[in-house]
Structures are given as structure tokens and as C-alpha cells.
């Protein structure tokens, strides 16, 4: 409504305050020395009321999982993405990448409109009808020499595209960089089912992952995480045990109760050995599994021990545990463990699931989940392109010039095509090399639907006017069809929206809807139609099931280290690389921001005499990459690992030239239908360069401070407190106050309670509190992104992170345990945010009362009072107060990124302290609404952004004085403890200790 206005500049604010102090009259207000305009709408919007959010249901397209969205809009701008609670895949929560789709929508580096090559070969602005004419003419001339590479998931667009390509007789390759092809190949081989299974964690008592990073990029991470937290979180009586098998502990790996690191490539042998153990010990094995007996009999303990290099005692323990605990769930097929034997590994895991009786229970087929035609199909197309058989190539929602290793010559094949067309929204590596850019609309700007699995059809609807001059690719296809005619004459829908509606009208008719408009509106409001998957016949072993090999896959090169490029949970296949939220949000495992790194085992680093930050060059037969070293205890000694996703040649201001592309060091050769990421040995040499690693990790170890607490399952089942669990184990708890200290603390507490009887502080207001269950938290950092989005937190950039000036109001601390003391290495994570202490040490030191305690139990921070002494931050034992050193917000939100800013939250100027507010704007909003409705606040009225986003449901928030609120029950849990309890600040955040299976924590 109002014209954009700079937020209050602090200098000007001080000036005005100065004038007031001098008693000068005619002060017109803080920021009104410029004329501001009020520009009303011409016509009343049916959906938008100024200052009230309007929420639209939509579907996320950031990966193939197809999570449901609730898009919060204000004044017709999308300002936050949250999960759709009705959606069966994500049930109301959302990961970091999904939330960062907003930074795709408002990305300053989006292709602003169609572009074509001029005579000099430079990309220049053209008109949409020129672009469509050019494409139509080329398609007409090309006949069947047309090809399309599409990363779009199943849905009406994909159907239309495949009909369109079939009509011209061209080739369609559905390609996603992380296509999980080995999983699908294995389903085909073992069960004859050409699809990816759906995993149900709910019944699993034993979870085993062979490199499947199911909390990060594997299949549906949000759904997996919810299932995992439900199964693995302590529910009062028990929990599942989780074992991770792989050369490196990924985010999924650090959540495991046990990490097993066999020789890379020998995992299939272990899986088959486990299957053999089950077959030999259990009586409830499916009858038809008997045919596998001779094949599995080869994988006895000795063979597995020889293949994997693991200690026989450890293998025996795994065999015994797995065979005795059920039901279980075994997964395999993550990109980080995609070696040439990955399809065999996945097949071995299918067999393991089958003999253990998991298929049909925790591993379900019949969902029809596919993720494209795979890497093999892409390489076939590359050969056609290189042979000059393709005249027109359209690349849609894919970036093959980045995601296919350079060594393979995809670029030269690409350049042989007469007309290359990109529909990318961004100047990514492929778009920058294309002849014609026809940018699609962002998924929040267009009509579409998504069919991620049987029974789930999500709708996408435009939630706002397009930010740039894109055009929906569906419309482009229809318009080109009209221009070309002939074989394409059958595409008669006037627009893609009309086509989509007609498809949905058919869906409505099939469901017996009499009022199709009501059916459409209902589906739009709900986010789609969600039905139980149609019953599928149970899968049985296929004839080819026995052809699984546990043989070790080949590795290229003769270097001494095995190279493992693994998917980053933030950048995914590289699409997150130009989103500052994802760059600034530290990698959940290493805590590194803004850069690429090479992970080395501490002993390897010692042998090579390299320290963190020193650059090493990894050389393989395919090429070499250089990056700074990060010494990581959670990796095998003979493996070096690098995250994927950075190192773009193009792709916008944040991504271009940032980091390195780990794919440069691997070959592009096909590994029977998929790209074998882990297929190379590398040589390692120091380059002599050094750059400090921009990480937010302080000390990787807790040093006995008791920040994250854990207790053994046996103690948790007995209902012991953390202290009791320590005592039961024969250890004193990490810190004990002396008797005198206890007396002093009690006395102080009494006096404080006396003071709390005064005035507004007499506990007449709600007392806000939070409980965080560390048994459920995985460290995925979705809450961190949610906090950035909700609270207008600016990114500070690599330089400032190096100085420790990041403004992450909520951060995930990760501490390593063991590894150097005989205990196996493990990690613990804890979300750290302002604890809103009752005896907050920050409050009494503020000379201007900017930090103070509110009557409703918040630790308030009043920006306009703050003069930036930073005393409060110095006095905070949790280090959760952040100082705004520069006007970060001015730099961090280049237009149109500023359109994302939450109007309910002040954009902070420089020179002030800021921190978690417990989403006070949401509290006040809920209080306003309750007052308008003449009622009190109910549980669930206030959900902080972090709690809302958390896929694990680890965070509970509410009024600690109201026994109806779930947070009260959660905080009273026997596992509850406060971080640094001995300093007696009485935090409002209660953590619930993690529970580890077994008898030792």
C-alpha cells in the first residue's frame, strides 16, 4: 500500500533524538522528512487485506519429493513458505531447500525475460513472440530431430511434454541429477517393479542405511525425517536403533547410534551376509526366499570380514542384532555411496529387506515413484547430439552442463546442436551456453500440478504476479504447437491453465464430483487431492533376484585415496548455490559456510602434515580440484570427501566462481544407467595456499560442559533424570555446585521470586517457554532457515562469518564425542537460541534498558533503545546475542530479494544487538486475534517459525503457566535439563536429553 520507504536509519534516528533533547519544536516525527505516498488499489482485492496474511496452498518443486506448501503472502507478495499440514508427504513441515525456494522466486539473478543471440553471438533481450516464432520455426525445420531434457517430475506438465515430444517424433529424456537410478534398477532386478519404494519408518525397530542419506537428499527427506524421528525418538518405552554404513558420516550418519565403515564397495557383501544370517536363524522368512539360499550361503562371516575389512566381532554383533530385532528397515542408494556396484548394493538390500519380512511393511512398492529416465538415457542423447542428429534441444528444469562431469564432453555435444533452448529461471551453466532463453515462471507464479506418488496429486497455483517477464513453459509449448501445426495441431488448449483445469475436471468426474468448479476450488484450497495409494499386489522375488553380486566395484586411477563426492544438504544438485540462506546456513556436519572443502581423517591429515584451511589438490585420471582441508573424524582414513553443489561457471552473483565443483575430478562414464560418483582414486598434494575456513563451529568438542546430554535407553526407560542416569552409571554429573553455592543460589532464587510478585510481573501473563527434544533433533537446520525467513535476518557473507559475525539467531551446535579415546566417534547436535532466562545476565548490564524482561517471560530486546554497548552479549553464557556490525540488511536484500521481508518484523539497522525473540511478532499476532475473538490463547495459537518448520517435531512452544499446553508436559519430562544449569540463569528453554540404545551414553 505505501510507497517503499527506507527503514529508519540509526544515524538519522540519533539526530532526531538529539533535536528533541535540545527542545526544538516542530519535530515532525522520526522518519517523515520525506513525503511518503499512499497508493491504494484500483479495485478491491478479494483475497488480500492489508497487514493480514493470506495463505495459498501449493507444491514444492525444489526436489522430486513433492512436499505440500502453505505460501504466506502479505500485500500480494509471498513472504514465507511453510509445509501444508494436510499433505501426506511432509505433513506441515519443510526443509531448508524448500523454504529457500523464496530466494529463487525473488532471486536478483533471474532471467528477466526471453533472450536470444544477436549477430555477435551475445544474449540480448527479445520479445516473447519473437522467441516463440524462433522456436516454432526451428521445430518445424527440425522435424523429428528435436530433443528435450526435462527435470520436471510426474504431473500434467510432464504428460503434456511427453505428448508434445512424441507428436514431433523427438526424444524426451527425463533427467534429474540425483535420480536414484540404482534404487530403481535394483527394484527391477529383485522384484520386477520399475519404481522407487516408499519407506515407512513407523514400525521399524532397527534401521539400517547403506549410504542412503535419507535426512538430506535421498527420496523424500522431510517425510523420512518425520518417520525417523518417530521411530528413533524415545517415546517413553523404547526406540529404534539406527546403524549407518558408509565411508563417511553424513548428516544422516551423525544421527546413527552406530557407524560402520567397511571398505568402500564392499557394502553389498555385508548386506548379503546379513540376509544370510537372517535366513539361517529366523523361521519366519518368506518361503520363496529359499531359492536365494545357495547364493547367500557364500556370504558367511569370513567372506564378509575379508570383503569389508571389518572386525569379525563387529560383523557378528551386526548379524546377531539384525537377525533378532524386527521389524526392521534397510535403505541404500545415496549419491555419496553411488559406486559402480551401487545397483548390486541396492539389490542386496532389497533381498535383505525381503528375507527380513520388511517388504510390504516398512518398504512399500506400488507408489509408482520414478525420478526420470536416468543418466544412461542422458548419455544416449549426448551421443546423438555429438553425432549431429539433434537440431533443437530444449533443456527444462535441468542443468546438465553443471551436473554431468566435464570430462565426458557433454558441452561439446551440446554445442553441436543447432538451436539450444533453456527454460531455466536463472542464468545457470546451461542457460548461459544456450542460444535461446525462454525463462519459465517460478513455481509460485504459475499453474501446475505434481504427482509424486500414487494417490497424491498436489496443485501449484500462482500466489502473486510474476516478478519477472517469464512465461509458463506449458504455454510456450502450446503456442509453439499452434505455430508449427502439422503433427502438433492436436494441442488445442488455449492456455496451459485451461489444459490443467480440463485435466482436473476429468479427475473430478472420475471421482463423481457433480460441481466441478467446487471440486477444483476445494482441491486448490487443500493443496491437491490426497487419497490412499491404490492397493498394489505384494511384490515377489523376480527370476533375476539371485543374480546379485557382492563383488567389489572397480575404481579408476591409482591414487592412494578413494574420492567420495557427496550431496550437500543445502545445495542439493547445485540448484541451491545462488541462495544466500543456503550458503550462509552452515553445513550441518562440518559447520562450514559459503565454500567448498575437502574432508580428511585426522590421522591422514597428520601423516600428510596438513591443517585445516590448507589447500590440497586432488588429482584423478579425470581431472583435479583444489579446496581447503577440513579435518573430519567421521571419515575413513583412506577416503577423501567433498560436497557437491558449488563451483558454478555461471548461475548468479552468489554462486558464480564460488567453491569448486567436485565433479571435475570424476569421470562421466556410465555405470550401467547411473553416474558412479564414488568411482575414482585420487592423489593428494599440498598446494601451499591457505585460507581460513569460514565455519561457525567454535570448539568441536564439549570439553565436559554438559551442553548436550544423553542417557542410555536403560536409564530412560526407568524414568531417570540426567543426573540420576550419570549416578547410575557411576559417573558424577559434569558439574556439581558446592553446598555453599547451592545455598547462595537458593537464596537468590527466593529473592527473585519475591520480586516476581510485583506489578505486571505477578505472573498474570502467559510465561512463554520452549522444549526441544534432542532425541528427535537431527541437526538438519530447517529451523535455522525458517528463522532467517521469518525474522528478516540478513546474511553477512564469508568474510564476516570468518570474523564470527553471523547473525543466526538460531544455530545448530554440533559436538563430536569419542573417536580419540577408544570410544567410537559420534556426534551430538543441539539447537541453540536465546534461552529467555528468568535470571537473564544480559538484562542488568544494559545501561539503556534495551535488554529487559517482559511480563510474559520473554527476554525482550528493544532495537530503538539499544545503543550497541554489547555488554549484554559479553554477559550471555549461551552466546546467542548477535551484534549488527554493518548495515547488513542494506546489502543482503538486493532488489527484488527485499520483497521477501516480513513486514511484521523490524529490519535492524547497524549498531544494535539482535537475537531470538521467540517470534514475538507471532505471539502478538495471536494475542490480537484472540482478543478480537474474545477468547484466551489456546495451545497451538503461537507456533514459532523454528517449531513450525521442524520436520522432526522436536520443538514445542507454549505457555508454561497453562497446564493444557503441550510444552508444559514436554518440559516436565524426566529427560529435561537446562544447558549450563549451574549458572542459575533459569532458562525458559528445556532440552530433553538424547537417548542412546544400550546401557552406556
Amino acid at each position: 500500500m505505501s510507497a517503499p520507504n527506507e527503514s529508519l536509519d540509526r544515524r538519522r534516528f540519533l539526530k532526531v533524538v538529539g533535536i528533541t533533547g535540545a527542545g526544538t519544536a516542530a519535530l515532525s516525527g522520526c522518519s517523515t522528512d520525506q513525503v511518503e505516498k499512499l497508493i491504494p488499489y484500483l479495485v478491491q482485492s478479494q483475497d488480500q487485506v492489508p497487514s493480514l496474511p493470506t495463505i495459498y496452498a501449493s507444491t514444492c518443486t525444489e526436489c522430486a519429493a513433492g512436499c505440500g506448501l502453505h505460501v504466506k503472502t502479505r500485500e500480494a507478495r509471498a513472504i514465507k513458505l511453510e509445509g501444508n499440514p494436510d499433505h501426506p508427504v511432509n505433513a506441515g513441515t519443510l526443509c531448508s531447500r524448500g523454504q529457500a525456494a523464496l530466494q529463487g522466486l525473488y532471486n536478483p539473478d533471474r532471467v528477466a525475460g526471453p533472450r536470444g543471440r544477436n549477430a555477435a553471438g551475445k544474449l540480448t533481450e527479445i520479445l516473447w513472440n519473437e522467441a516463440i516464432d524462433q522456436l516454432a520455426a526451428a521445430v518445424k525445420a527440425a522435424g523429428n530431430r528435436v530433443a528435450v531434457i526435462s527435470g520436471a517430475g510426474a504431473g500434467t506438465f510432464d504428460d503434456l511434454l511427453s505428448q508434445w515430444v512424441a507428436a514431433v517424433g523427438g526424444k524426451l529424456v527425463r533427467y534429474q541429477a540425483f535420480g536414484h537410478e540404482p534404487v530403481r534398477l535394483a527394484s527391477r532386478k529383485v522384484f520386477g517393479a520399475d519404481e522407487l519404494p516408499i519407506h515407512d519408518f513407523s514400525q521399524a525397530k532397527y534401521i539400517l542405511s547403506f549410504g542412503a542419506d535419507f535426512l538430506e537428499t535421498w527420496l523424500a527427506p522431510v517425510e523420512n525425517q518425520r518417520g525417523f524421528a518417530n521411530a528413533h525418538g524415545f517415546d517413553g518405552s523404547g526406540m529404534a536403533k539406527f546403524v549407518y554404513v558408509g565411508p563417511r558420516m553424513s548428516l544422516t550418519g551423525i544421527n546413527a547410534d552406530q557407524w560402520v565403515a567397511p571398505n568402500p564397495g564392499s557394502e553389498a557383501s555385508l548386506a548379503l551376509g546379513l540376509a544370510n544370517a537372517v535366513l539361517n536363524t529366523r523361521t519366519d522368512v518368506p518361503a520363496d526366499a529359499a531359492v536365494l539360499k545357495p547364493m547367500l550361503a557364500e556370504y558367511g562371516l569370513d567372506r564378509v570380514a575379508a570383503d569389508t575389512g571389518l572386525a569379525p566381532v563387529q560383523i557378528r554383533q551386526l548379524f546377531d542384532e539384525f537377525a533378532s530385532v524386527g521389524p526392521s528397515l534397510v535403505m541404500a542408494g545415496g549419491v555419496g555411496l553411488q559406486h559402480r556396484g551401487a545397483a548390486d548394493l541396492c539389490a542386496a538390500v532389497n533381498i535383505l529387506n525381503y528375507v527380513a519380512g520388511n517388504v510390504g511393511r516398512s518398504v512399500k512398492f506400488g507408489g509408482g515413484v520414478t525420478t526420470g529416465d536416468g543418466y544412461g538415457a542422458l548419455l544416449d542423447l549426448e551421443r546423438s547430439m555429438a553425432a549431429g542428429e539433434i537440431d533443437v534441444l530444449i533443456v527444462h528444469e535441468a542443468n546438465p552442463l553443471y551436473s554431468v562431469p566435464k570430462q565426458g564432453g557433454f558441452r561439446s555435444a551440446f554445442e553441436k546442436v543447432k538451436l539450444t533452448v533453456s527454460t531455466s529461471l536463472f542464468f545457470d551453466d546451461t542457460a548461459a551456453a544456450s542460444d535461446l532463453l525462454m525463462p519459465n515462471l517460478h513455481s509460485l507464479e504459475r499453474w501446475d500440478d505434481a504427482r509424486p506418488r500414487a494417490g497424491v496429486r498436489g496443485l501449484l497455483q500462482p500466489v502473486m504476479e510474476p516478478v519477472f517477464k517469464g512465461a509458463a513453459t506449458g504455454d510456450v509449448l502450446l503456442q509453439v504447437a499452434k505455430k508449427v501445426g502439422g503433427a502438433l495441431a492436436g494441442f488445442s488448449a488455449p492456455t496451459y491453465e485451461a489444459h490443467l483445469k480440463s485435466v482436473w475436471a476429468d479427475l473430478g468426474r472420475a471421482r463423481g464430483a457433480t460441481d466441478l468448479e467446487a471440486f477444483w476450488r476445494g482441491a486448490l484450497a487443500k493443496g491437491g487431492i490426497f487419497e490412499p495409494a491404490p492397493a498394489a499386489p505384494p511384490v515377489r522375488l523376480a527370476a533375476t533376484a539371485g543374480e546379485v553380486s557382492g563383488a567389489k566395484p572397480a575404481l579408476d586411477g591409482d591414487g592412494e585415496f578413494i574420492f567420495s563426492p557427496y550431496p550437500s544438504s543445502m545445495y542439493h544438485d547445485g540448484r541451491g548455490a545462488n541462495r544466500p540462506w543456503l550458503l550462509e546456513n552452515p553445513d550441518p556436519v562440518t559447520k562450514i559456510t559459503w565454500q567448498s572443502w575437502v574432508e580428511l581423517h585426522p590421522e591422514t591429515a597428520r601423516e600428510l602434515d596438513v591443517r585445516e584451511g590448507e589447500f590440497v589438490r586432488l588429482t584423478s585420471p579425470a581431472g583435479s580440484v583444489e579446496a581447503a582441508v577440513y579435518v573430519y573424524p567421521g571419515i575413513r582414513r583412506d577416503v577423501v570427501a567433498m560436497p557437491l553443489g558449488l563451483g558454478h561457471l555461471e548461475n548468479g552473483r552468489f554462486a558464480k566462481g564460488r567453491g569448486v565443483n567436485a565433479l571435475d575430478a570424476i569421470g562421466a562414464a556410465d555405470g550401467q544407467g547411473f553416474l558412479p560418483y564414488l568411482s575414482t582414486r585420487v592423489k593428494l598434494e599440498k598446494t601451499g595456499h591457505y585460507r581460513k575456513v569460514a565455519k561457525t563451529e567454535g570448539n568441536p568438542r564439549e570439553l565436559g560442559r554438559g551442553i548436550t546430554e544423553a542417557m542410555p535407553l536403560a536409564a530412560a526407560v526407568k524414568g531417570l533424570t540426567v543426573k540420576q542416569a550419570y549416578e547410575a552409571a557411576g559417573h558424577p554429573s559434569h558439574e556439581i555446585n558446592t553446598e555453599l553455592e547451592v545455598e547462595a543460589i537458593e537464596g537468590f532464587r527466593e529473592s527473585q521470586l519475591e520480586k516476581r510478585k510485583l506489578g505486571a510481573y505477578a505472573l498474570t501473563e502467559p510465561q512463554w517457554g520452549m522444549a526441544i527434544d534432542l532425541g528427535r533433533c537431527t541437526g538438519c537446520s530447517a529451523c535455522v532457515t525458517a528463522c532467517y525467513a521469518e525474522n528478516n535476518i540478513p546474511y553477512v557473507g564469508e568474510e564476516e562469518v570468518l570474523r564470527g559475525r553471523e547473525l543466526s539467531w538460531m544455530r545448530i551446535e554440533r559436538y563430536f564425542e569419542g573417536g580419540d579415546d577408544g570410544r567410537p566417534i559420534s556426534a551430538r547436535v543441539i539447537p541453540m537460541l536465546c534461552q529467555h532466562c528468568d535470571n537473564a545476565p544480559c538484562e542488568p548490564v544494559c545501561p539503556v534498558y534495551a535488554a529487559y524482561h517482559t511480563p510474559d517471560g520473554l527476554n525482550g530486546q528493544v532495537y530503538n533503545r539499544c545503543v550497541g554497548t554489547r555488554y549484554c552479549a559479553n554477559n550471555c553464557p549461551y552466546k546467542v546475542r548477535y551484534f549488527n556490525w554493518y548495515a547488513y540488511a542494506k546489502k543482503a536484500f538486493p532488489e527484488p530479494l527485499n520483497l521477501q521481508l516480513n513486514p511484521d518484523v523490524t529490519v535492524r539497522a547497524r549498531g544494535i544487538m539482535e537475537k531470538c525473540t521467540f517470534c514475538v511478532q507471532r505471539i502478538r499476532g495471536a494475542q490480537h486475534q484472540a482478543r478480537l475473538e474474545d477468547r484466551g490463547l489456546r495451545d497451538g495459537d503461537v507456533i514459532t517459525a523454528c517449531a513450525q518448520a521442524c520436520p522432526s517435531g522436536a520443538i514445542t512452544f507454549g505457555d508454561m503457566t497453562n497446564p493444557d499446553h503441550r510444552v508444559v508436559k514436554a518440559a516436565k519430562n524426566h529427560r529435561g535439563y537446562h544447558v549450563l544449569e549451574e549458572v542459575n540463569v533459569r532458562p525458559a528453554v528445556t532440552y530433553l536429553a538424547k537417548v542412546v540404545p544400550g546401557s552406556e551414553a
Partner: protein
Amino acid sequence: MRKLLVAGVGVAVIVGALALTSFRPSTAQQQAKKPDADSVVAPRLTVADSGQLKGPKQPIFFRHDIHSGQYKIQCQYCHYSVADAAEPGIPTLQTCMGCHLAIGGSDSTHRVEIKKVRDAWRQKRPVEWVRIHTLAKHAHFPHMRHLKAMGPNACATCHGDVARMPQVFKVNNVNNMGFCISCHVERKVNRDCTACHY
């Protein structure tokens, strides 16, 4: 609440005494609850007079005293979201045209201004009003809470007796926190900083 209403009436009476030129009770319309609001007849002014009036000159010489005072149109008819949302809502041009499609003005001074509205509507060009009350960006003022607490006639408490303003001007500095606080102290309501600052 009673105290505040009295205070509001006090202001209204003073302003009213200056603006009142004649007294003609309205018979066609319902009797308003507040006796002083009954008595407004807007003076005849042309756009040339607007320079002499208090407050910034607007692109259209919109007369709150005619609409709200003389014709007793409720504030919320145009400021449509004030009872539900933090923002009061600025009427869309469509709202203006809802009446002014039919009402062309009884007087030449009115007709010339109404023509501006109709032209803007025809040209699909919104009117760019000059903003009078701009709350600093670090403070949040929920209009609906104040309407809920003080009733539909609460507007005058901060905005003055707009019903008698030919051209709206700033009566109170909404960025003077003392102005907010004195009221909150008097009414014994929330004085917590984070009630408004977050």
C-alpha cells in the same frame, strides 16, 4: 474508556466551534449517538482554499468533513480493515466510484474534484495520496486492538476530529511515544516495550 471519550469530545467541541457556521439537524439520517457529530455542515471551499488550510495539499481535494461529517459515512466504510487488521486500509478507487458513479456533485467546487476521481478511474491510475501519519518502522500499531477496546469512534483519539477537517492534518504526533504511553498509563493497559517494538 469513558475518560478518553470525554477527552475526544473535548477536542471535537473546540474544533467544531471553529468550523461550525450553521446548525441544521439531519432528519433523513438516523440520529447519531454522539450529539456533537450531528451538527456538521461542511463549509463551501474550493481547491484554491486548500493552500490556506492546515495539512498537506492532496492530489484531490477530498473533503473528510463532507463525507464523514456532513453525510456521516462511517470511517470504516472506506477504511475497511481497521477493525480486523493492523492497517486501517485505504479505500480503493472502486470504493469511491461505488458512490461517485452516480453522485457527480451538488456544487461546482465538488464537481471539479469528483471529475478527477472519475478520470483516474477511467485511466486506471490510482490516486497518490500524501501520507500524513507514518509510524516509525520499529513500532507496530494494531489498529484493530484499539477499535476493539475503544469502539468504532476511537479514531478521533489519535487522528483528531477528522469529521470537521476540510483537509486532514496531523493533530498528534504518532511517533511521539509519550503520546501512546500517557493513554496506556491512564487506561492501565499494557506498557511492555515488546507490545509495540519488535
